[in-house]
């Protein structure tokens, strides 16, 4: 009877460890943006990009085809990329979004695995910028950039390794133009 109980305890422990291993492995760098979906009805300008899986592979193949050194650099910078998700919302007036929704996204970055790379606060436009990275061992597995201002919110979530310095340098060059949306002034 005692040996039977001992064996049963061992089996239960094994099952628990197996479940724990699966749970730990399931931790990814993917952020949840669902609480920002309501901003689509309030924002005057929206940019939403979700690219991963086969679509990302297709885009990488195009980069390989491009016969240009900088394009190759970009291709190298995103070689291990698994997904990239972007949300940008711009509003006409101040106070059109709930700051707690952005804080909810920031709170996801406080979970284990994420480490803060940069934290910028500016009184100009009440700007808050946070950059977080996630590493699996020595390899980068995720990047998150959260930018909130009075009239705009931007969240970028990159899954997989990416060369941050190279990407920042490439802004405005070659095939990665700077984004600047200008509006015509109303008469």
């Amino acid at each position: 009877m005692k040996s039977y109980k001992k064996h049963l305890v061992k089996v239960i422990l094994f099952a628990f460890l197996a479940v724990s291993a699966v749970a730990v492995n399931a931790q990814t760098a993917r952020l949840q943006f669902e609480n920002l979906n309501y901003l689509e009805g309030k924002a005057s300008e929206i940019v939403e990009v979700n690219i991963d899986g086969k679509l990302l592979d297709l885009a990488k193949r195009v980069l390989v085809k491009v016969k240009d050194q900088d394009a190759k650099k970009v291709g190298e910078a995103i070689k291990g990329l698994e997904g990239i998700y972007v949300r940008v919302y711009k509003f006409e007036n101040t106070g059109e979004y709930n700051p707690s929704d952005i804080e909810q996204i920031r709170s996801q970055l406080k979970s284990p695995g994420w480490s803060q790379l940069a934290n910028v606060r500016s009184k100009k436009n009440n700007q808050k910028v946070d950059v977080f990275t996630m590493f699996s061992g020595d390899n980068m597995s995720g990047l998150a950039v959260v930018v909130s201002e009075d009239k705009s919110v931007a969240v970028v979530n990159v899954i997989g390794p990416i060369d941050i310095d190279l990407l920042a340098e490439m802004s405005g060059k070659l095939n990665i133009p700077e984004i600047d949306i200008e509006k015509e002034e109303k008469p």
Partner: protein
Amino acid sequence: MNEDYLWNKKGNDAEIENLENLLSQFRYQETSAPKILPEKVSEIEKTPKRRFFTFSFAFAFASCIAFVLVLLGVWFQILNKTPETIADLSNPITPETKIILPNETEKIIATEDFSKTSETPKFIKAKSLEQKNTPQKTIFIKKKGEKPKAETLELTKEEKFAYDQLMLALSITSSKLKMVKEKVALNETPEILIRK
């Protein structure tokens, strides 16, 4: 001892005759009833049966549960990696794309004809659409009129769309990272707290 009496019943042997008289009650008789066993029988210690069958069933059941849980975890991971459809691939984003918004009149965003070369870069401005309650979706807008290298290649609609989406995402990411880098480098106002 007289061996003749022992084997052949010849002669006399007092000792053997005495033994025969003592054991005569146990002499086999065909008509006699079988001997009755004594009432008290010593109890034999019962060895406990190994509940092998019960243990093996529990072990198998627990192993099955663990296996199912592992499979569920793997399945959820595969589900999370399912690519999301972004837009209708039959209408890819091109510099000449018409942007049609719901409840709005059709308007064409100003585009640059990349086939014409000029010394000074031309800027493309996005004409603001009529501001109504419906939100607008901004698309890839180029500031410097440099023809993307991808356009010189023969690409399928899907490839062009995927490339445009990737470039858009990378452009936004790089602009934000560049902004952070510049702020960190400049350290513009004392109110800025920078942690690394």
